Each structure stands twice: as structure tokens, then as C-alpha cells.
């Protein structure tokens, strides 16, 4: 089965994020960049399917020069080839424009299945994968923590509030990953060596035939007016006391009388 995995390079979740001087972007220096954690699950899922039934795994990513590192990481895990949409004109695209670029690239890549993270942990937009599925006219299942493939169909366990729904979709289809789906493998040393030789196609906006007036920071439909750190809380009030029961009594009194929660 030919599988395409959509991946994005994002700041490490253990990184502090700070607002840049322009007030509408983040400081990019001093950040450690990683593969979006949900995309790691997607790469692993694709590799497991390939190992079970053959086929190819193609990594598709939109991002600046540096994003090649993330594509190489996926190749080192075992994916076969990469497509890197790398064009300054595409930088700063919002979710829908990103989806248009990815969908355009997917016209030239054979696939029966597309796997993506359910969100990227940078802008937390939750939209790119669904929009790609719509633009390609294929079904989608989001936030999947278990998946089975049987003759032309995919069965996905989709996590919802308080439970799971089992959704069947015809192929080709797209699904997005949720934690619990698998434990992503680490790239092995031989894998890392091999990844250096695996092909990565670089595409520009023009190569994809997408109108440059639809993409990039200047053409966002969702305009970022300002970024700021969340308001700081007042200094913590430490609850003192001799025994645990004294502290417990004092805390519950505050929660009951001051905050009126209990």
C-alpha cells in the first residue's frame, strides 16, 4: 500500500516559547526543533502497515530549509522518500493555504492512505489534515488510537469525549493520530546512514501550480494581530500547618469560603 505521511517541524514541547519583537511571531533562535509528536505516531503507523503488507511510505512536509531535518528523521525511521515544499513564498501560510499546498503536492504522489497528526503542537489549529482530505475528496477519520486495514477499507477507533467510536471508511482515506496508537520507534544508526541517501524532492509553490496570491504570510485569512504570554497568576498562597489535617482544613475552608467552589 502506498502511504503518504504529513509531517511538520515544531518547537520542542519542553521549550519555552517567547514572543519576538514584532509581536506577531515567536523567537526562533534558541529553540530546539522536533518532529510534531503526533506526526511521529503517524510515521510509525505507516511503517507498521508497510511492514505488514508492503508498499511505500512517502513523507510530505511544508517548511523552511530546516524542515529537511524532520523529513530525514522520518526517513531514518524507515520511510522511503520525501517531498519537501520549501519556498519562502509559502512561509507563514495559514492552515487552509497549507492544506492547498499539500493537496497540490499529493496530486503527483500515489497514495491509498494518508496519515497525519491530529494537530501540530505549535499553532494548535487542528485543521490541515481535514482540509487536505476535503480538497482531495477523500474521507477522513480524526484522533485515531487504533487502526485496522481490510480489503479496501480502513477501520479506525476514533477518540471522542468519554469514549471511542469505531469508524469504517473506504480507501483512499486519511486518518489523524491520537496518543495511544503506537510507540514510535527511534531511528537506528544504520537507519540514519541510509536516510542520507534516500530521495527528497524539493517543490516550490510554482512547481505545485498553486497561485502565489493564495499562500504565505501576506495572504492569511486568519491574521495574527498580536501574540502575548498568558497573564501571570498572583503569587501562590502557601498553606501552612502542623499536621496534614490542619493544612487540609485550611485549604478546604478557602475553597469553600473564598472561591466558593465547594
Amino acid at each position: 500500500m502506498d502511504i503518504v505521511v504529513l509531517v511538520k517541524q515544531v518547537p520542542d514541547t519542553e521549550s519555552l516559547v517567547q514572543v519576538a519583537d514584532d509581536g506577531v511571531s515567536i523567537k526562533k533562535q534558541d529553540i530546539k526543533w522536533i518532529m510534531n509528536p503526533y506526526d511521529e505516531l503517524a510515521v510509525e503507523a505507516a511503517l507498521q502497515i508497510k511492514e505488514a503488507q508492503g508498499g511505500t511510505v512517502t513523507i510530505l512536509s511544508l517548511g523552511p530549509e530546516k524542515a529537511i531535518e524532520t523529513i530525514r528523521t522520518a526517513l531514518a525511521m524507515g520511510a522511503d522518500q520525501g517531498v519537501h515544499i520549501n519556498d519562502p513564498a509559502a512561509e507563514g501560510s495559514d492552515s487552509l493555504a497549507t492544506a492547498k499546498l499539500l493537496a497540490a503536492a499529493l496530486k503527483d504522489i500515489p497514495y491509498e492512505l494518508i496519515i497525519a497528526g491530529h494537530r501540530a503542537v505549535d499553532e494548535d489549529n487542528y485543521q490541515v489534515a481535514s482540509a487536505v482530505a476535503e480538497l482531495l475528496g477523500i474521507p477522513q477519520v480524526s484522533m485515531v488510537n487504533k487502526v485496522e486495514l481490510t480489503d479496501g477499507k480502513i477501520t479506525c477507533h476514533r477518540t471522542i469525549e468519554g469514549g471511542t467510536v469505531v469508524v469504517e471508511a473506504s480507501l483512499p482515506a486519511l486518518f489523524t493520530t491520537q496518543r495511544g496508537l503506537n510507540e514510535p520507534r527511534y531511528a537506528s544508526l544504520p537507519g540514519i546512514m541510509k536516510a542520507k541517501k534516500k530521495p527528497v524532492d524539493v517543490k516550490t509553490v510554482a512547481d505545485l501550480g498553486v497561485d502565489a496570491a493564495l499562500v504565505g504570510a501576506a495572504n492569511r485569512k486568519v491574521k495574527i494581530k498580536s501574540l502575548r504570554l498568558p497573564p501571570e497568576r498572583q503569587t501562590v498562597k502557601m498553606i501552612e500547618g502542623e499536621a496534614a489535617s490542619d493544612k487540609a482544613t485550611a485549604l478546604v475552608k478557602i475553597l469553600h469560603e473564598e472561591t466558593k467552589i465547594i
Partner: protein
Amino acid sequence: MAQGVFAITEQRDGELRKVSFETVSEGRRVADGLGTELTAVLLGSGVDGLAEELKKYGPDKILVADDAGLAEYTTDAYSNVLAELIQSSDPAVIIMGASAQGKDLAGRLAAKLDAGVAMDCVKVQLENGNLTYTRPMFGGKINADVEIEGAPQIVAIRPNVMDITEAAKNSAIEKPAVQLGEVKTAIVEKKMETDDKVELTEADIIVSGGRGTGGDYAGIEALADALGAAVGASRSAVDEGWRPHSDQVGQTGKTVSPTLYVACGISGAIQHLAGMSTSKYIVAINKDEEAPIFSKADFGIVGDLFELVPAITEEVKKVKE
């Protein structure tokens, strides 16, 4: 020109979900601010009673798409029907919940309508006729103010954040004929956890445990029971296999905004803090007085959680009696 506000509601198994009331209430505020009409939209099968219930929150109109094929949420049927309703009414603003359903639907609708989406908003502000949406990014490490160009503007609001306001109206109910369109997905099974379990993202109170529990959640569960709270967990607790993934709070888990968040034995890794920082009150219990969690808490207790949590549970029971 596009005008009016759509509030897309959500039902499951014959009940409206709480986020629906938040969506309609916020829709009412936005529509009043813009001086325009609010239409509540309800999709389902045999949902007349639910439409009546929505009147309580004051929509001018309730559009009901009632079809056996809409009984369960499927991306294709719901997005096809909604796109059709939206295209025929041409609203300026569409509000929905940033729930499992809304997060699945938003991108699909955005692509169908070529519209911008502000996802998981915690605040909607109107100034000089312009709407600005505040949304956390990077799992809550940053707040962004965004505006959307063009129409419709799609806004998904974070569950449990917007106020629910009753403003009963004798809303007109319309039941247009709908086309499900091509549906390529089917629900084969639904497995719900026990009914009395409180869902994390909708919980008013969350008691969360981390590495400090050593995997023993009995005390935390007892406190959660006494408070009517949901149980959450830190990433390390989930990685240890002590709690299911669905309990994880943080940048790579669930983002929560309860009224009260009680963090027990959680040191406060930055990715965890990001996921719970919009809680109204935060209580931290940790044996290490230097733990970063205390810098984000309103109230802190240094001590052994195995002594403190049962003591707090006893106190809560006394107060509740």
C-alpha cells in the same frame, strides 16, 4: 453581503452537549453586538425536543436538519449538510464547539467554504464591528489575538470557557430538506466509558496526579469522587502506564479549563503547565517546595500527598454534608 450568526450545536444519544449551550450563548452575544440575527443549527435524527430546549438560550431561529443519516456524527454527512445550510443562508460568523466533533469538522468546512477558522478560542471581542478572537497556541504557552478576513468566519470555542446565559425566546423553528451527499464513512460501533465518568475537557473540577503518586491513584480517585471531579494525569504518569492516554493533561494531551484544578505530585513540566494554565483556580500539592508547579498555582501545600489527599477528602465530605 454575508450577515447573521450561525451557532452549530451538538447532540449525542438524544442529549444536547453542554458546549451547545455555550455556543448558542456566545452566538447570542456576538449577534447582539453586530445587531444581527442568531440562528442555532441542530443536526440529528428525531431531535424536535432538543430544538425546543435550545429556545432557552435565545436564538432568533433554529434550523433543524433531521434525517436518519444524521443520527450519529459522520464527517462527510455533517459537513455536506452544514455547507449546504451555510451556503443558502450566507452567515457572516459561524460558531461551533472546539470539541472532538468541532475539531474534526472545522477544517473540512473551511476547505468547502474557503473560509478562515479561529480554533479553540477562549474569548471573542467585538470592537468597531470587527471580531477579534483570542486563542491559546503552543498548548497555552502563548495567547494569540486573531482576526479572520472574508466570510464566513468560522470560530470554534473551547468547551467549558464561555458563559451559558439563558435568554428564552420563542424562536422560529425551520426544518429544511437536506441532502446528505456522498458518505464514505460509517459508524460501526460506539464504546462509551461508564456514564458517571466526568469528561476531562468538560469537567468543572479536575484532580490530577503525576509521578509523585507512584502509580497509586486510590486517594486521588476518592478525592475526585468527593468533589464530583474528573481524574487527570501528567504525561509521565501516562508514560508509566498508570493512567490511560485519555487522562493526559498537557501540550501533547488534553487542554483543560476547569474552575478548580488540583495537581497532586505533579512537578510542573512546562508542557503540563501549558495544558492547564487557563484553569480558574489551581491548587498544587507537592513534597518538593521548589517544584515549578507552585509558580503557577493559586494555593500550594508542601507535604506528602498520601497524607494530604485523604485529609482533604475528609474535609470536603464534612463541608458537603
